[in-house]
């Protein structure tokens, strides 16, 4: 009978704490969003499952010695987000951006979402019970970059305790881009503006695509070396692909390697969704701020495009400004969809890819600023 008693004392029913139950429900919610609603399933499914696993009582899967604690080392060291960024680099085509470099300004404008959110996070401290440090605020703000690995990398450096909530917010809002952005884009533009057709893009030579990642890396080195790990790994992946001489490496980086790391990273992020860290007022704040960040970034991107139209002869459809938040490629698709709505001959997808990848660079640069100024 001793055994039965021992076994009863080791059951989950006996050991459950309310917080764990709630966090498992959060995990199931993420799985539901990933599977049923198709919300960024590549990340939210592993994150959700990781959240469930790490809140199983007794098993200690996320505690020292558990498998998730080992996988988390890949985030703690920064290796996982950087490898994912390398793979994303290998999948990225800078062609549309190089064909129309002005769109980089749209990618810059949309990063205002990041810095406005930083201010917002600090302002939220007037709410009793909330105490975001400057580091916390910076880590939360990066959600506005709409770029998963960048957000995880910055959060792991500045505010590891908030990592789970930040990653969940970042990926959730990226998945919500098709819902969040259109009302803002419609509110800020007239039907005529949305109908603007853009000139066909020039052809970008292979040589330019090879040299560009190196130019980007050199500029980062000269001006903002704190962004160099992120930008550097991104450029490395991109150069492997653009150069065409190491196809077997770039394919592996963009497929098997990024897949393996995505599984590990997702589970490890999920392991930070513990009740202690997640069931707090802070998390509500983070979720609210993240939504605001996306909205502001969308708006400033659109407004920047409208400003540029004032000063430029070649017209820009302001819808593509919204793609500047990155959230590759959903934001570009949203711009394309709204363009077609207003004018059935108006294919904006390729034009929107420019600000879209510019937004990736922009948020990596913003990350570099935060990493070098916030201690």
């Amino acid at each position, binding site marked *: 009978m001793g055994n039965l008693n021992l076994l009863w004392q080791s059951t989950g029913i006996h050991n459950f704490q309310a917080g764990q139950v709630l966090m498992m429900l959060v995990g199931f919610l993420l799985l539901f969003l990933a599977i049923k609603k198709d919300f960024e399933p590549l990340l939210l499914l592993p994150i959700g499952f990781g959240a469930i696993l790490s809140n199983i009582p007794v098993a200690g899967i996320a505690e020292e010695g558990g498998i998730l604690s080992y996988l988390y080392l890949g985030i703690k060291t920064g290796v996982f987000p950087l490898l994912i960024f390398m793979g994303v680099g290998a999948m990225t085509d800078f062609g549309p951006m*190089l064909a129309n*470099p*002005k769109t*980089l*300004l749209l*990618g*810059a404008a949309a*990063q*205002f979402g*990041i*810095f*406005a959110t*930083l*201010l917002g996070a*600090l*302002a939220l*401290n*007037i709410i009793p019970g909330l105490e975001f440090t*400057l580091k916390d*605020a*910076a880590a939360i703000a990066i959600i506005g970059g709409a770029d998963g690995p960048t957000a995880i990398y910055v959060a792991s450096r500045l505010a590891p305790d908030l990592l789970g909530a930040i990653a969940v917010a970042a990926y959730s809002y990226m998945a919500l881009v098709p819902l969040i952005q259109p009302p803002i884009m419609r509110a800020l533009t007239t039907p005529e503006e949305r109908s603007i057709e853009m000139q066909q893009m020039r*052809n970008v*030579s292979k*040589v*330019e695509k090879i*040299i*560009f990642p190196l*130019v*980007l890396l050199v*500029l980062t080195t000269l*001006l*903002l070396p704190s962004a160099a790990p992120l930008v550097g790994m991104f450029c490395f992946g991109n150069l492997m692909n653009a150069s065409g001489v190491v196809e077997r490496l770039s394919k592996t980086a963009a497929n098997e390697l990024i897949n393996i790391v995505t599984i590990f990273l997702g589970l490890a992020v999920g392991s930070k969704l513990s009740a202690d860290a997640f069931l707090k007022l802070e998390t509500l704040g983070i979720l609210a701020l993240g939504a605001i960040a996306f909205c502001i970034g969308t708006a400033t991107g659109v407004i920047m495009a409208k400003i540029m139209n004032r000063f430029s002869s070649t017209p820009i459809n302001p819808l593509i400004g919204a793609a500047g938040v990155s959230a590759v490629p959903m934001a570009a698709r949203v711009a394309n969809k709204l363009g077609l709505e207003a004018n059935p001959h108006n294919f904006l997808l390729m034009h929107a890819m420019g600000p879209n990848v*510019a937004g990736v*660079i*922009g948020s990596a*640069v*913003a990350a570099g*600023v*935060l990493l070098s*100024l*916030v201690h």
Partner: protein
Amino acid sequence: MTELITSGVELMLVGMGIVYAFLVMLIAAIHVMGVLVSRFFPEPSIIDGLVVNNGIDQSSVAAISVAVHQYRTKHK
């Protein structure tokens, strides 16, 4: 608290400034690059690429495909 907000505002101004400055310089660099590349690596005519798929009829495609298949099978 006010101090925190002050540093937040300063961070916002400096941050957006840097982001803009960086990307403006990148635009400049891309333009310079474009000029240099078109001078030193003039693009070969696009017609070369178009010819590729033209002359070949369907049966050749099948034949090539067999060859490719055998090649891949062996060299995997």
